[in-house]
């Protein structure tokens, strides 16, 4: 990793960091990266991505911090932090919903049967999950979701619609939030299910978003799920998903730092038509220097998160601060990149003249999503103000 601003790595972890880098050099092939960048296969559930994840699984890294009984290695949070940063920096497939959300949730709330059925497969990278939360009318206000799960004997019957469910078309299972009680207050009628992604009645319609990422509208037309695939107790889904979220708060910052490095590298090169390097322009230099300062800022609060998690804390305010600052920073990086490139900054990756293969253009084009998905900037500010500063709701 990282020419720009290294994060502090304790001496006893350096070997692990080196091992991860070694692994990435060996297994993060061009095919894997290109497949991921194509945006067609979610965060890494194409043919090459899955092979890569299985390789990770062989090393136990998908369950790095899990106890051995669930196929994990029982390593520390700092190991997990290093793994996340190194993978993000290298633009590797993300660990995904299975290792990050489903696994921790099952360990806490799953039945013995569920643990047996899914945990080893997740840890080995053989079972891939897609997230099934968002609905057209339930975006920021997730708790108002409406997809109905009706009990019918030993099964639940699902009916409704999801949107922005990115990996449903390539996953094996969906980790689905559905409404099991329509009378209860909205937070109290939600349950979580494991749904076979190839179930009868489940159909997928592709949509494409900024940055050419494929995501999906997913229709559930009387999809039947066995009761054993319900997580924990019915109507406690909101509680489960909130705790799971608190457990695995890794927001690696090295992806945007890599973008910034690319931009700085580009700024040092001779320009088309024979102009002097951009970095010799005082205004460009200053703009990049400001971003380097912000990169250091983001490093500080990212490292702090890892440190707190390592102390056994549940740093949710700190997570909101990190998300908020990191994502707005990433937007500034993307904007600065395309702006200093001038006319060349508008060229897409498919254009032969595009600087850096168009990567920064695409990054900028996709960047509006950053401050919207996974809790918008407004939601983060609400959390910081009301939960962090205890201002009256």
């Amino acid at each position, binding site marked *: 990793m990282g020419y720009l601003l290294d994060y502090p790595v304790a001496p006893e972890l350096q070997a692990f960091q080196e091992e991860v880098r070694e692994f990435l050099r060996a297994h993060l092939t061009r095919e894997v990266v290109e497949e991921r960048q194509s945006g067609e296969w979610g965060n890494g559930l194409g043919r090459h991505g899955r092979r890569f994840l299985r390789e990770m699984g062989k090393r136990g890294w998908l369950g790095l911090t899990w106890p051995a009984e669930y196929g994990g290695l029982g390593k520390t949070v700092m190991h997990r932090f290093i793994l996340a940063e190194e993978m993000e920096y290298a633009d590797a497939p993300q660990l995904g919903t299975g290792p990050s959300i489903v696994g921790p949730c099952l360990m806490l709330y799953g039945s013995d049967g569920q643990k047996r059925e899914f945990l080893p497969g997740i840890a080995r990278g053989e079972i891939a999950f897609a997230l099934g939360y*968002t609905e057209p*009318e339930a*975006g*920021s*206000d997730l708790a*108002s979701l409406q997809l109905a799960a009706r009990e019918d004997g030993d099964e639940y019957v699902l009916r409704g619609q999801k*949107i*922005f469910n990115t990996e449903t078309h390539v996953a094996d299972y969906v980790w689905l939030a559905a409404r099991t009680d329509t009378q209860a207050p909205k937070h109290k009628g939600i349950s979580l299910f494991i749904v076979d992604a190839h179930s009868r009645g489940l159909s997928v319609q592709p*949509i*494409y*978003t*900024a940055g*050419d990422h494929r995501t999906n509208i997913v229709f559930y037309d009387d999809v039947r799920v066995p009761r054993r695939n319900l997580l924990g107790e019915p109507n406690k889904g909101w509680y489960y998903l909130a705790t799971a979220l608190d457990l695995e708060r890794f927001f690696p910052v090295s992806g945007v730092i890599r973008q910034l490095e690319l931009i700085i590298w580009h700024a040092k090169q001779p*320009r*088309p*038509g*024979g*102009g002097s390097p951009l970095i010799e322009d005082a*205004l460009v230099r200053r703009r990049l220097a400001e971003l380097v300062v912000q990169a250091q800022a983001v490093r500080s609060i990212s490292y702090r998160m890892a440190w707190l998690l390592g102390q056994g804390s549940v740093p949710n305010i700190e997570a909101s601060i990190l998300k908020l600052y990191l994502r707005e920073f990433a*937007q500034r990086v993307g904007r600065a990149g*395309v*702006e200093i490139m*001038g*006319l*060349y*900054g*508008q*060229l*897409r990756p*498919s*254009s032969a*003249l*595009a600087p850096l293969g168009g990567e920064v*253009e695409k990054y900028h*084009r996709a960047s*509006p*999503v950053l*401050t*919207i*998905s996974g809790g*918008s*900037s*407004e939601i983060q*500010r609400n959390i910081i103000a009301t939960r962090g500063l205890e201002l009256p709701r």
Partner: protein
Amino acid sequence: MRVELSPGLGFTGEQEMLRQSVRAVLGEQCPLPVVRAMEQDEDGFPVGLWRQIAALGWLGMLAPEEYGGGGRSFLDAAIVLDEMGRALFPAPYMWTVLCGEVIASHGAREQRARYLPMVASGEALLTLAWTEAAGVWRTDGLVTRLQGGRVHGEKCFVPYAGSATHLLVAAKDGGGRTVVCIVRRRQAGVTAAPLRTAGWDKQDVVTLDGAAVEEVIADGEAALEQALVLGTAMQCMVMAGMAQRVLEMTRDYAKSRVQFGRPIGNFQAVQHHLANMAVDTDISRAMAYQLAQRIAEGKEYALEASLAKAFVAQAAARVMDTGHQVHGGIGLITDHAMQMYFLRLKPLTNLLGDADFHLRRVERAMPAMAAGAPR
């Protein structure tokens, strides 16, 4: 509703009618799906509609009547451009009219007589082939050469070169003087290779391999300076129209989208986002229209054009960003209008100089500002 505020000048009844007519025609003939379809269209613009706007007199609006034009105020053109921005009209209207104005101002009489009627009738689609690999809007460093009635060089980021009938090519002649060569697009020595831009607008790399020149505008410096400043003013109108539409769209969405049991437009954070969008949009419109009026009055406006572009380009970008933020996920779908406005702003902010370029022009004018000592 008060979404669209007065820019601080009066429109005639005729001008109000013109605005309504443009809005109606484009609203009917060129809704966003047509704009989207044009991204992959071979012609690159709606050919039928082009004929129609020629018939409506929009293309010849500014040209003198003796050349088949309407001889109307620049403010009329400003209204058309504002509405075209609002509709994202996907055609080289601005470029054709701009090049026509350059010919009208700097072309010889026979050049005016040759091209302006073709502009007015919709027969000619003109564009400006200025920047080269360096990607700058300057005349020093131009590599393209005019030699023996033929022109050699490579031009980058030429708007609508694929569909244009004529190119106005910035070049140096044998004596090192800057000239503008008028070159017919369809000929052996001219090839255009499309660039793939974020906005899916049409920009090309044009290779001039001994292309025959039809006419030469001798005072290239003056002609290109006019193209720059007048084109910049036109872009400001287009961007102001785009921002206005995004403001309205976002306002409407905020009123209808319900989250947490109420319309999101009821949340103060969203209200303030929209207020900021309104301020940026309103000032952009005021600056753009006041600049247009200045041009219509025949006053000097080079500095004002740069001031306006520096403001409007940045303000419109903020409007797009905030519009996205209010729309949330739905605005990120590539077919959504928010995405189209967001991406199509880029060619406008980039071509004919971005904010940085125009701020440099402002900087050059600064020594003359605040010339006197304080009291």
